[in-house]
């Protein structure tokens, strides 16, 4: 029996497999979430039975579907996990750290087996994991723990409501089904009881008893969808009235894990490419609007002042509406950054076990929203920073105690938004970065150890390709993405990577990213006859510098700036254009501290929204230029990439940058 034996139809067996993989992912997510909860029960004596039940159900489903696709090792692993959970449920064994670890291991192995099936790789051996669990199940304690009362520990003070829902064709036509009603009730509180109910007139209805603190208005709102509600007297709910058929596994478990706070009927899934199309259309509109602006400016002198004001007002209204429209579309693309964060507890946990360290992971700002595209691109870099923090950043418990710290290290992963910038931080309270070790390592790798003068320089060394502070590229951190890739990904996305470190106190990596790409505010600058755009987010300020204030220092130019000096790069020289015949230049200040750099242009002519067309074709990709835009007059304007320029310029004579000299406008 195999999926391929199914009668030939329009669904190939690979179709079942894709469903299988997707379903495995869902169950594994649920399993891990529950295992973390189960872990908290170790040594407490009372285990939350609903957690056990729900875990059991996940493994049971995994066993069932793995059997159907004939993935025997996966079937066997889930079967063994079930065995252990059953033994726990019967109080045959006591919950131990070894047991929870064995379940975590089995889960990880299950995932590896499924991934191997998915990618056609070699399926890992499961014998050891199976034997471990078998050993745990057979090791029964001499003194069995007293049975834990089975009644769910409902909060006695929360009011209980009885809801009745009578399904009908009319409601189904409106998409209102019992599963939807249950999801909505789950969002209100805890469902204590859910069962079908035959009314006096012989009709089928569903009865739900829900412990909820929701207000009467919220509850009344459900009536539109065929739900009636009554508040129960506080004393009447004794325990779960649902008669469990299988005494071992009560039928009423916790609400399904997919239930969120938003009812499914209010959510539409949209292919990302459709949003991209929409964004592109808005981009075209922004360009047309700019073109209209130029036309209007040309005819201003030919139009009577009163008429002109009306035209101008309309133009401003369109401007504002256009901005609202693009912000609305942008918001559609935003998803909570929790998508990245959710995986981290498992990663940290697994790694902490491997390295024998004690770690607590703190997550902050999980509801911070960020462009879907950025989520996908940032997943691996954040994963790398977190792995680094565990394997390199923090010390072992013994080392920490010796240093007078708490044995348990803390890693904080946080996200926040300010304006159009999202900040992601990965901070640890570990040993800090050993500057001397980095220096000697850098010297060994042919890099200049003197670069490590400050945090920015240190980060630059850490991010240099081929640099690693450990001799062996250890398993944890060395999953293909190094710090070099973290930095280049962040910069490709128009962001900035920073680092703060203090010996003995910890290290903090800070990633600042634009909330979204595609359309952004930019400064428009003239250099000779050419026009360039610079993303405003990258520019800290614009200053006017008289030529007389520019000094040559060796082969570089500098100017006094905020009590120090600012290295300057003249874009005219960089791009092989004529120097301006003027005695004051405008300078865009990018970067901070030691890595601050001034990009000198003839003048900044304005600030506007631009539609970014990223240059990704390697044939036209030039370091220092991130893409092109159309300002509305049909001319293509190059968008400079200040971060890349700053990177290229550091430590090099002005005007002699590989790959840039002579690459002017097109």
């Amino acid at each position: 029996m195999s999926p391929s034996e199914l009668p030939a139809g329009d669904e190939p067996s690979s179709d079942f497999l894709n469903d299988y993989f997707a379903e495995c992912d869902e169950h594994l997510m649920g399993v891990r979430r529950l295992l973390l909860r189960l872990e908290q029960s170790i040594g407490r004596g009372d285990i939350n039975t609903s957690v056990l039940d729900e875990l059991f159900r996940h493994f049971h489903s995994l066993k069932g579907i793995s059997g159907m696709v004939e993935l025997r090792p996966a079937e066997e692993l889930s079967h063994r996990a079930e065995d252990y959970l059953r033994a726990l449920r019967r109080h045959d064994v006591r919950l131990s750290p070894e047991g929870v670890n064995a379940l975590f291991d089995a889960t990880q192995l299950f995932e590896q087996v499924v991934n191997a099936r998915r990618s056609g790789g070699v399926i890992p051996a499961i014998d050891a994991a199976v034997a471990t669990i078998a050993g745990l199940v057979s090791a029964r304690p001499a003194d069995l723990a007293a049975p834990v009362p089975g009644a769910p520990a409902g909060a006695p003070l929360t009011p209980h409501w009885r809801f009745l829902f009578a399904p009908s064709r009319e409601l189904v036509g409106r998409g209102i089904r019992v599963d939807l009603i249950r999801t909505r009730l789950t969002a209100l509180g805890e469902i204590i009881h859910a069962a079908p109910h035959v009314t006096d007139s012989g009709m089928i209805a569903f009865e739900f008893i829900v412990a909820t603190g929701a207000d009467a208005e919220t509850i009344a709102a459900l009536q539109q969808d065929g739900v009636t509600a009554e508040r129960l007297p506080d004393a009447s709910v004794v325990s779960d009235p649902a008669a469990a058929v299988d005494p071992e596994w009560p039928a009423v478990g916790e609400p399904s894990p997919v239930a969120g706070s938003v009812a499914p009927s209010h959510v539409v899934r949209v292919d990302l490419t459709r949003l991209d199309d929409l964004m592109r259309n808005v981009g075209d509109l922004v360009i047309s609007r700019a073109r209209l602006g130029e036309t209007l400016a040309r005819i201003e002198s030919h139009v009577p002042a009163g008429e002109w004001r009306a035209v101008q007002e309309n133009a401003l209204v369109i401007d504002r509406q256009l901005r609202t429209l693009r912000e609305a579309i942008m918001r559609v693309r935003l998803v909570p950054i929790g998508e990245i964060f959710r995986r981290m507890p498992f990663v940290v946990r697994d790694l902490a076990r491997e390295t024998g360290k004690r770690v607590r992971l703190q997550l902050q700002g999980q509801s911070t929203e960020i462009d879907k595209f950025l989520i996908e691109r940032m997943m691996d870099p954040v994963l790398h920073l977190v792995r680094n923090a565990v394997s390199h950043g923090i010390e072992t418990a013994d080392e920490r105690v010796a240093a007078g710290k708490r044995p348990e290290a803390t890693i904080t992963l946080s996200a926040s938004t300010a304006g159009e910038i999202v900040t992601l931080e990965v901070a640890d309270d570990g040993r800090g970065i050993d500057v001397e070790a980095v220096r000697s390592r850098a010297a060994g790798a042919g890099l200049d150890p003197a670069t490590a003068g400050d945090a920015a320089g240190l980060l630059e060394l850490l991010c240099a390709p081929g640099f690693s502070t450990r001799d062996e590229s250890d398993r944890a951190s060395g999953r293909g993405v190094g710090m070099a890739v973290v930095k280049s990904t962040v910069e490709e996305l128009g962001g900035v990577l920073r680092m703060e470190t203090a010996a003995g106190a910890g290290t903090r990596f800070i990633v600042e990213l634009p909330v979204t790409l595609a359309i952004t505010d930019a400064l428009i600058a003239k250099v000779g006859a050419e026009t360039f755009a610079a993303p405003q987010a990258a520019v800290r300020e614009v200053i006017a510098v008289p030529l007389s204030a520019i000094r040559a220092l060796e082969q570089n130019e500098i100017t006094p700036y905020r009590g120090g000096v600012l290295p300057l790069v003249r874009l005219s020289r960089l791009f092989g254009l004529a120097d301006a015949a003027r005695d004051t230049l405008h300078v865009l200040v990018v970067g901070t501290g030691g890595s601050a750099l001034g990009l000198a242009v003839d003048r900044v002519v304005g600030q506007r929204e631009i539609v970014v067309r990223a240059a990704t074709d390697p044939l036209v990709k030039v370091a220092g230029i991130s893409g092109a835009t159309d300002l509305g007059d049909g001319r293509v304007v190059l968008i400079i990439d200040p971060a890349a320029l700053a990177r290229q310029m550091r430590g090099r004579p002005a005007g002699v940058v590989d790959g840039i000299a002579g690459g002017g406008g097109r």
Partner: protein
Amino acid sequence: MRKILIVDDSTTIRKMVRASLRQLDDAEFVEAASGLAAIEQIALGPVALIVLDLNMPDMHGMDVLKFVRGHRASKDVPVMVLTTRGDDSSRDTALAAGATLYFTKPFTPPVLLAGAKDLLSGVGPQA
């Protein structure tokens, strides 16, 4: 059209059952991902055959079965219980509660199809 109700919380299994039974004549398939949704389908109109999983999150398949047998409109509908291997002890319980046929997963599609054909043509289970 005879309505065939497939009840399982796994999308994969529902699809496989559907594919296995595709050759049935004059059949319309409806799916339910939970016990409550299964009973909702029964409330919405007559059903000719139910393929029922036992281990489901909100309402156990045995409860669904008991409800089906206890309800006027559905008490005579044949029910094929299809449950994961390892629940074997529940075979007797399920049959006692009124299951017409009992299969375990992984199931063999032709066997499932043959069972469904028999039940739909009014042939009882070959005890």
